[in-house]
């Protein structure tokens, strides 16, 4: 198998309707100074409703806020 034949391990970001951004794969999560953010699992959910108490990660609070993404 040559490198071109291998399935690509491209990182992917899934925009979950009415929910977080799910980040899978080899992506650097860093603060504005480029310092790595603490990461506990391979796949992480990033808050996009703005209400999480554990930002940048999702804590499910979007469900209490009835956050919607309009299908995006």
């Amino acid at each position: 198998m040559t490198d071109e034949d291998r399935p690509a391990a491209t990182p992917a970001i899934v925009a979950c309707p009415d929910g977080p951004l799910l980040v899978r794969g080899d992506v650097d999560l860093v603060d504005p100074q480029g310092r790595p953010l603490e990461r506990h699992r391979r796949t992480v959910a990033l808050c996009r409703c703005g209400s999480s108490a554990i930002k940048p990660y999702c804590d499910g609070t979007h469900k209490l806020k009835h956050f919607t993404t309009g299908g995006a």
Partner: protein
Amino acid sequence: MFDLQQAIARAVAGSDDLLHDDDVQLALDMLYELHYTGFDEADDGWEWSPALLAGRSLIEAAFERALRASVPMPELPEPRADAVAAALFELTAPTPGPGLARTIEREATDEQAREFIIQRSIYTLKEADPHTWAIPRLRGRAKAALVEIQSDEYGGGRAERIHAALFAGTMRALGLDDTYGAYIDAVPAITLASLNMSTMFGLHRRLRGSAVGHLAAFEMTSSLPCRMIGDGFRRLGYGVDVTFYYDEHVEADSVHEQIAGRDLAGGLVDAHPELLADVMFGAAACLVVDGMAADDVRSAWEAGESSLLGSAVRS
């Protein structure tokens, strides 16, 4: 001569509420335990004893009938991944008002909070195991999703991060016995029924859709309650050695619920639309049975009693 099948048939037929029947649920729990980590005192060969399996199937048939009679079937969405995920999120949407997690957060006494941990220990010391049975029954997107969730449940390769091990740490920090089964005689039937149901869904390939739906509902009703429970233990003065399991689940299950709804349950229904009703039943059954167990605990506390059997257990 003692006839096991007859004895089981009598016990099952004579029960007017199988979900709350201590003997029947304990018997089923023990029969299932032979497939998990077993008993020191029981020969491992009993796992595949035809007599025990025949007895187990008598209990399971009645248990499944009782579940189907107790669980209102939700309206079925279109058999597409996005519609299934949306329906599951709607079914599991947080309800305002009282609940067991809120009670822990706001008013449970120290003794009640420890009692809650004892109740949860029956499942949580083997957290994730019942759904793992479903992995070889799935293919493609659903399988990858289940493995992704379970890998995280099992610590992503780090034994000390296995969620069941984190829960054992919580128990030890509270001075409770973290040996599996230490409190099996103290918990009521409905607590055993909750675990038995997920084991039945996991062990029967026929019910793989319900195993998937069950896990999705479980994950979707976890992160917000886990924060309340962690806050409850902080209110009672406990530190991170007690709360870490719950703190971890706030973040972990916010990830898992997305994977479980869209890729696991949705992916399964995309590939197998005929399993849609099983998926939704499994989700609804999780909510109903775990809701019954939680309500029983709160009712006991409101009456000033313990939710545990007999003379309640101290550490």
